[in-house]
């Protein structure tokens, strides 16, 4: 069975400040890890993914996440946030061997304060 825990339901941060959104996962098989972003009244957009190889993955808009197998974590970071980053962020695990589903955390609402 797979599960995802997002440790913070809401994160307020001032514009141009750094941010970290925390994600821990549980899986009995090799994992694929994802961060999705959801803007108000929209669907999910893939932000970045870890499949294999380098444990540090980056997105085109300045976010990065690091896969830490020993701590079963996949925290999302950005060194300087913008107003436009205000959204809800979901961490997900899977699909894995024998399973085709994504398992999501409950989400973290990032609010960027001007």
């Amino acid at each position: 069975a797979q599960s995802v825990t997002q440790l913070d339901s809401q994160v307020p941060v001032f514009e141009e400040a750094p941010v970290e959104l925390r994600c821990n996962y549980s899986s009995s098989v090799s994992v694929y890890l994802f961060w999705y972003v959801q803007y108000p009244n929209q669907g999910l957009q893939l932000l970045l993914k870890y499949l294999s190889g380098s444990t540090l993955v980056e997105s085109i808009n300045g976010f990065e996440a690091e896969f830490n197998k020993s701590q079963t974590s996949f925290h999302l970071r950005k060194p300087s946030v913008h107003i436009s980053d205000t959204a809800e962020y979901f961490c997900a695990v899977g699909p894995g061997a024998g399973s085709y589903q994504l398992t999501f955390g409950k989400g973290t609402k990032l609010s960027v304060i001007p």
Partner: protein
Amino acid sequence: DAGVTQSPTHLIKTRGQQVTLRCSPKSGHDTVSWYQQALGQGPQFIFQYYEEEERQRGNFPDRFSGHQFPNYSSELNVNALLLGDSALYLCASSSRLEAYEQYFGPGTRLTVT
């Protein structure tokens, strides 16, 4: 290149009624998954369709059923609607070559009164 499309955008139904939601996958994709996102929650996997058959099902009752057509589009049907079925229903598509990467549509907001 069209992404995943869903219809309708919004829907209001009464308890006990039945509803059908529709999804067209991204061009080149042959697999469709459905997720339910209740308010304030992360998406929950309902089921996945591949080659016109249900390949995997999440923890949802039989009131939730689906179908995939030869052109890979899909429908989600919910019978005997309950108030608790009110949610955003998301469709995601993927290809069998990159099954791990799912692209989501904008969703259908279902309200049951």
